[in-house]
């Protein structure tokens, strides 16, 4: 029992981290709101499903195309919606949330619900650690999740684009004066974040059926991880995912799955009460607190 909790808690944490990476890259690191994140996640899932089952493409091609298409959608979202309301936080939030809502409810209206909407796993089979069976898909999730997290950490510290992402969040005007085209960088950031959402969707969705409601859950979980970890910190995302991931598993094991949903919310409220800028948030510590 304990072993299962530990192993599945670990996997659950990696899944949370994977979900939160894209949101964190856009919202946490570059300071651009993307509340259509959950919708993009679900959209990527349905895009792969449509390409495989209706257009007959092979899985690999469909997956790559889905990631590219979602990134392009993110870019378009920035260019046609976000760019016009940039800097007005209220409008950014409402506009992106509206776009996400429109996409999710459109899928619901079109009837994309049911057991046939599943994505194929990467490789079939399972391995045994101790007495616990783990299927290959979860191993893929862990492997790719960890490498993406490390990749993101290195990317935001050692590449020019990554540094520019952090730069525009810290001080957009200074970034401009140093030759960073903040509009282009912010657009790229939304595109990258959307691409990461698509990758997460392709990895995680094969575990069950694709459902519209999951879009909201993904957004909530991603927000929870970002708030708790602190904006602008990759380490914070990882630590927060492990905290929430294990907290969810433990509540699941000891008090039943009913309470699993409430863990992230309680965690958000506690962290806002105790340390409002999150565990590792330094970037805007002063500006966000009143």
């Amino acid at each position: 029992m304990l072993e299962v909790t530990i192993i599945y808690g670990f996997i659950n944490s990696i899944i949370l981290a994977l979900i939160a990476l894209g949101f964190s890259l856009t919202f946490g690191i570059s300071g651009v709101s993307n509340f259509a994140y959950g919708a993009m996640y679900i959209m990527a899932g349905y895009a792969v499903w449509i390409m495989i089952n209706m257009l007959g493409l092979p899985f690999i091609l469909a997956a790559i195309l889905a990631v590219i298409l979602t990134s392009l959608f993110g870019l378009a979202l920035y260019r046609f919606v976000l760019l016009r309301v940039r800097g007005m936080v209220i409008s950014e939030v409402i506009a992106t949330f509206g776009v996400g809502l429109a996409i999710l409810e459109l899928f619901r209206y079109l009837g994309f619900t049911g057991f046939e909407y599943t994505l194929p796993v990467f490789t079939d089979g399972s391995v045994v650690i101790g007495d616990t069976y783990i299927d290959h898909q979860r191993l893929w999730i862990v492997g790719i999740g960890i490498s993406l997290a490390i990749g993101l950490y290195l990317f935001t510290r050692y590449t020019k684009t990554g540094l520019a992402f952090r730069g525009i969040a810290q001080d957009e005007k200074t970034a401009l004066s140093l030759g960073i085209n903040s509009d282009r960088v912010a657009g790229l950031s939304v595109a990258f974040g959307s691409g990461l959402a698509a990758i997460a969707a392709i990895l995680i969705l094969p575990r069950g059926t694709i459902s519209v409601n999951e879009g909201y859950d993904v957004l909530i979980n991603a927000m929870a991880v970002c708030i708790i970890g602190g904006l602008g910190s990759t380490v914070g995302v990882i630590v927060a995912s492990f905290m929430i991931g294990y907290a969810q598993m433990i509540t699941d094991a000891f008090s039943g799955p009913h309470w699993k949903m409430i863990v992230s919310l309680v965690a958000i409220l506690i962290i806002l009460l105790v340390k409002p800028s999150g565990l590792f948030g330094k970037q805007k510590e002063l500006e966000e607190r009143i």
Partner: protein
Amino acid sequence: MKQKRRERIDRGIKVRSDDIFALTSYREFLYVSVPPVAPIILLLALPLILPLYWQKVLITTAVFAILALSWDFLVTVGMVSLGQALFFGVGAYLAGYFDLRFGLPIWTTIPLATLMGGLISAILLLPVLRLRGVYFSMVTLVLPLMFERTIEATGWLGGTEGLTGLKSFSNIWVECYLIVIVLLLVFFGFRRLVTTDYGLVLKAINNNDRAVMSGGINIYWMKAQALFITGSIGAFCGAFMTHVYMFVGMPVFALDYSILPLASAVVGGMGSFAGSLLGAFILVPLSEALRGIGGLRTVIYAISLVVFIVAIPEGIFHYVQRKYQQFERWATVDN
């Protein structure tokens, strides 16, 4: 080089009747008095002329208009809520619970639910008040969804079945006139409130919170009061609808109750309250007319929300107001 640009000038009648306030003719008198009086007469007369089905629509519209007004009020204080359904749902469940558990009469459950709903909402959101930016939106977005999940999972308060067999109002006239009068009270009350000293402080918190703090005012306490006001009004709507439907269930936390008030306020125009009222009275009857398309309605709200916030951020009301008060002409300018 000579160029043309459009210039806007206040109409003479506006200057005479509004700014100088020298009313010398019926025309000027009507110019000042029609805009505030027309909605009152219209709202009070509507229940008399509408058929039964549209009376029900009027009730829903008024509820959404009140929610939109309370959303607009929160925005005035600098808090953007993405979850008016929280206030609505808390009030609805409280009223249902009081009715079923203690068998209280309707005129007790609604005031109780109103006050307690405001209190509960304010307490739930207290942790977020210390932060600026999008945290408030995030948490308000999360809370109603969480309530819905909790009730679904634990089966408390009737679970997925909801609470049924609640008391109803004696007849539809009571329902109609109660909600219309509350709507008018909330509308004119808010418009009055933001011009008082109290409202001025609230607006100042939105503009520059540090300046208000350095003025020796406890802004958390002020924000909590604003939350209580909004929460109470939202909870009243919830409690009222509970008794209209004689039922309360998980749909009270649905996204509809969050997104429609928001869309109404944005389409109508934020910041003036009149915009929210106008927006609700455009969107809700429209959606009722489009009932046939079912789930697509939310998509339409969402799209209209995005279009208005991106392309026409001032909203319909401010456009109308400008046309009413100013005229435009082409002027040549040298540069």
